[in-house]
């Protein structure tokens, strides 16, 4: 059924169709609308015998799901930013124990300074925790990825994060085609656990593992992620067959065939990038784009194959490895090792700063002219930086950085950034 609804509402509807049995949540912007809607659906009996638990913290929320999953229930939660960090211990625990759960991440920047707007620092912070990470480009894809995620998690006994850009997608009203219950049931069978807390067949789960066995157990978790590389492709094809829609998959190429320059990105910015590609193509520029849909496992082979013929890959990423630079660009460089492709890092959109067509055009021109710094910070106000650095030199007790930068920028609430 086609609807014009808020992204969060669409995701809540999709999750409900997947027949979760235990949902446990703690509120955090920008995921609140999802969990609010799910609590309403549970209360109204729209999700069978599902239990909805208001946890005392995100750490509590995911811990509740660990117990529920081990007891054989299909489980779901959602979080972002600080909340994801607060549950870090449980995130590693869930993947280490091999318990399938699906968690929506409404991608949001991590503080300090506190910031509620979109970037990818949260899911990036936990990229190596053993969860599969899928990124949605649109609200339609967010809906579809949740359906695929439950199946993926349960097939592999590996938890899955579905990442969607906070506010940009969660709070955007877009047309979405929601599947029917029959369609979802045909795609997603009931959960059959690999391990189960069952008095009729007792087992001990969560024992300590020493040096004699830890490496093997750890490798097996890594192996599960590598299996996911195939499973994600399989599910993409099956989803297309059953739902008639291309969604998910490891990567998606756009006009890359004879492209000299290819932009690479995760998530919703791919929409804007395709507009830029089309306009530049109309102007005769050989340019294309590559969307990375599955960030973990990282599709090394697929990325290499997609990018190897081009001259230049520009990775536009909404994250910054402090003290180092790009994260996704490093992954891309690794995938392209040995090949003469120039890989450029563009750090953009931090803390919710909009990535505009105009800025992308300018950046691409500079890159093609060989004049782009590396890494490049898109739309960074270097004047503000210089002034703040100079101010700090004046005395030791120079005060908090964030407050002084805000004063410089003279930020007004509704000013478009």
């Amino acid at each position, binding site marked *: 059924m086609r609807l014009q609804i808020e992204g969060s509402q669409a995701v809540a509807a999709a999750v409900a169709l997947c027949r979760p049995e235990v949902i446990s949540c703690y509120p955090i912007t920008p995921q609140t609308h999802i969990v609010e809607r799910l609590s309403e659906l549970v209360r109204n009996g729209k999700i069978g015998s599902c239990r909805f638990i208001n946890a005392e913290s995100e750490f509590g929320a995911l811990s509740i799901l660990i117990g529920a999953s081990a007891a054989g229930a299909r489980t779901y939660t959602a979080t972002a930013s600080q909340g994801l960090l607060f549950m870090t211990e449980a995130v590693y625990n869930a993947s280490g124990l091999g318990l399938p759960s699906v968690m929506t991440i409404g991608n949001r920047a991590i503080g300090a300074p506190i910031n509620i707007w979109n970037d990818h620092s949260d899911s990036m912070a936990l990229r190596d925790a053993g969860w599969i990470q899928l990124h949605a480009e649109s609200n339609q894809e967010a809906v579809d990825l949740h359906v695929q995620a439950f199946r993926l998690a349960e097939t592999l006994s590996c938890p899955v994060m579905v990442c969607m850009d906070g506010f*940009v997608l969660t*709070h955007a*009203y877009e047309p979405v085609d929601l599947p029917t219950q029959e369609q979802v049931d045909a795609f997603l069978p009931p959960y059959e656990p690999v391990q189960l807390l069952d008095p009729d067949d007792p087992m001990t789960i969560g024992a300590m593992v020493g040096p004699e066995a830890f490496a093997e157990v750890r490798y097996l978790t890594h192996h599960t992620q590598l299996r996911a590389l195939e499973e994600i492709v399989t599910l993409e094809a099956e989803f297309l067959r059953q739902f008639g829609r291309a969604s998910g998959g490891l990567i998606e190429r756009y006009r890359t065939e004879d492209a000299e320059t290819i932009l690479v990105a995760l998530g919703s910015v791919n*929409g*804007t990038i395709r507009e830029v590609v089309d306009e530049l193509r109309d102007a005769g520029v050989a340019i294309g784009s590559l969307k990375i849909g599955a960030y973990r496992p990282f599709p090394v082979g697929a990325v290499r194959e997609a990018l190897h013929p081009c001259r230049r890959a520009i990775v536009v990423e909404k994250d910054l490895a402090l003290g180092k630079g790009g994260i996704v660009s490093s992954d891309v460089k690794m995938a392209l090792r040995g090949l003469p492709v120039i890989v450029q890092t563009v750090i953009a959109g931090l803390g919710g700063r*909009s*990535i505009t067509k105009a800025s992308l055009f300018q950046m691409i021109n500079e890159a093609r002219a060989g004049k782009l710094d590396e890494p490049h910070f898109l739309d960074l106000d270097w004047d503000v930086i210089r002034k703040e650095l100079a101010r700090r030199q004046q005395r030791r007790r120079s005060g908090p950085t964030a407050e002084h930068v805000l004063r410089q920028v003279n930020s007004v*609430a*509704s000013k*478009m950034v």
Partner: protein
Amino acid sequence: MVTAAELVAVAAFLDGKYAQAFPSFGSERMGAPVMAFCRISERAIRLREPVMKPDALIIQDPTLLHQVDLFTGLSPSGYLLLNTSQEPHRLGLDDLMARLPAAHIRAVPATEIAFKQTGRPIPNAALIGGLAALTGWVTLESVRKAISQKFPGRVGAANAAAAQAVYEAVRSSRTASERERTHAVAD
């Protein structure tokens, strides 16, 4: 404004178009200044930046007019719908108004109209009726339907009535200014 942009998007959807609406929050809390954006298109919308060059601007809270930089980017043939009971001339917007075609600017007391119809001074839904009248990008019928879908029962009906009242107010004021022009020419 978030609800208004959402309603525009739903109305456009009901008219068979593609639409995208999203907010730009200044803060998490209710009552903080907020901008919201909407795009309407015949084709699927991929762009995700804020609307930098609006074809129309709805000012719901005139007290923000000079606090926030609202008008850069407004197209020279753009539309401006102001929620105010005052004459536009008295809002200090003469420069802006000189840029735009006269027929594209309308002031309407949407808060008062909404209050009369719904008992609450919330003009969001009502203003969309004004947008429909001013631009024709969405039909009144779809605006009413979108409002009824969002707000159940009597509340929806009252807001839809408010939207219709604002629609008619904008239409009749257009007719009035056109009449003025005709008179001026005739003089």
